[in-house]
């Protein structure tokens, strides 16, 4: 049979780090080209078209993926295999000691879903679950037995979608995507730092380095996030979306000062700073650039390629903003 949908929902352990997750996605890409990452720790694979290539059934393929994941990335994954997204996601949470749960046909899906508690259904939150339980609908099977009009009266428009999912129907398709890329630079202070001038100098240095790197790679960032490690071992993170994707030092610097002001540190002793450019996309995709009516800004943008060329020729820190020179202060 061709065109059959076989969706694998791969779930990592909650403590999986970003690097392992990325390697896992690469590995899943070898199984089937249709991989949709669900960060931070899950992914969907449409393996319907890949079964013939691997000459096996979905359950055995999932087992192989699991072994490969452990061998190559060292992470123990759980895989739910079904014909829809919602059912596969529910199945991956109930694999038991085998690590793989394959629901090959409709009776199997129904037999699996019916006895589960209502909050196990994909898309049901605590509030909806409470509401449904109040009316005596404790299991997914009980919900599936209700007519649509009743469920919609209980929980509103969402009821229709949930009722479909209780029947094992989910029209959402797996869309092949890549994990949004990020790039980060960090600075560690030799001693815990209190001095606001030196902190600003370090931040400025980071943002200039990051912007330069983005321009060299011809990428633009959609958001900027700053992670500050404090002396006590704790850390504070803050993310800010840029008004428009950009790789200009100016735009990134403005966003960074906004973040820094919003953090409003007073006497925090700071051990390290990490600045991350998120949602990287390649420059030139998306809508065109808005014309700037600010001549100073235009001038700074025009001088950027020149500064980059000088820095590329004479070393990374040949030309920097004056504020970024820590020793001069």
């Amino acid at each position, binding site marked *: 049979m061709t065109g059959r949908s076989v969706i694998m929902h791969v779930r990592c352990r909650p403590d999986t780090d970003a690097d392992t997750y990325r390697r896992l996605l690469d590995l899943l890409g070898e199984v089937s080209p249709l991989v949709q990452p669900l960060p931070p720790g899950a992914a969907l694979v449409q393996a319907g078209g890949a079964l013939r290539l691997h000459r096996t059934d979905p*359950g055995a393929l999932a087992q192989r993926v699991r072994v490969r994941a452990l061998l190559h990335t*060292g992470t123990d994954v759980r895989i739910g295999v079904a014909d829809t997204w919602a059912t596969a996601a529910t199945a991956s949470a109930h694999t038991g000691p085998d690590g793989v749960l394959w629901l090959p046909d409709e009776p199997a899906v129904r037999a699996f879903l019916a006895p589960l508690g209502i909050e196990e259904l994909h898309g049901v939150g605590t509030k909806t679950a409470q509401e449904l339980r109040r009316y005596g609908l404790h299991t997914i099977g009980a919900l599936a037995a209700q007519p649509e009009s009743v469920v919609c009266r209980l929980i509103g428009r969402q009821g229709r979608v949930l009722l479909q999912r209780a029947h094992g129907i989910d029209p959402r398709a797996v869309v092949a995507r890549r994990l949004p890329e990020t790039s980060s630079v960090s600075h560690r202070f030799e001693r815990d730092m209190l001095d606001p001038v030196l902190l600003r100098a370090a931040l400025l240095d980071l943002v200039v380095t990051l912007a330069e790197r983005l321009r060299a790679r011809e990428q633009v960032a959609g958001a900027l996030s700053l992670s500050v490690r404090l002396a006590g071992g704790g850390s504070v993170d803050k993310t800010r979306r840029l008004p428009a994707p950009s790789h200009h030092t100016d735009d990134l610097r403005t966003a960074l000062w906004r973040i820094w002001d919003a953090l409003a540190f007073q006497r925090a002793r700071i051990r390290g700073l990490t600045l991350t450019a998120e949602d990287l996309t390649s420059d030139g995709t998306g809508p065109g650039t808005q014309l700037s009516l600010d001549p100073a800004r235009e001038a700074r943008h025009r001088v950027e390629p020149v500064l980059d060329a000088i820095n590329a020729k004479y070393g990374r820190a040949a030309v920097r903003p004056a504020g970024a020179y820590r020793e001069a202060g």
Partner: protein
Amino acid sequence: MEQQPFPLDLIQTQSAWSATYRTLAAVGPGAGTVTLRRRLLRLSTQLWRHPYRAVPGSGSAARIELREQARSEDAREAGAA
């Protein structure tokens, strides 16, 4: 329909496989796992290429049945020891 009993070597391979997988998953990534990884790979190949697998009807249900038999075998051995 009564399921044919599995060959003993297949059950033993399965139980060794499960034990190796568990150990490797508990250790996590890093150094010192080469032996375990090689062992898991070898056991996986043995498991998937076992002649018994060529018998028609040894599908998903048989796989689950095999795992359960391996588990009960382990439990019996643990009880006897």
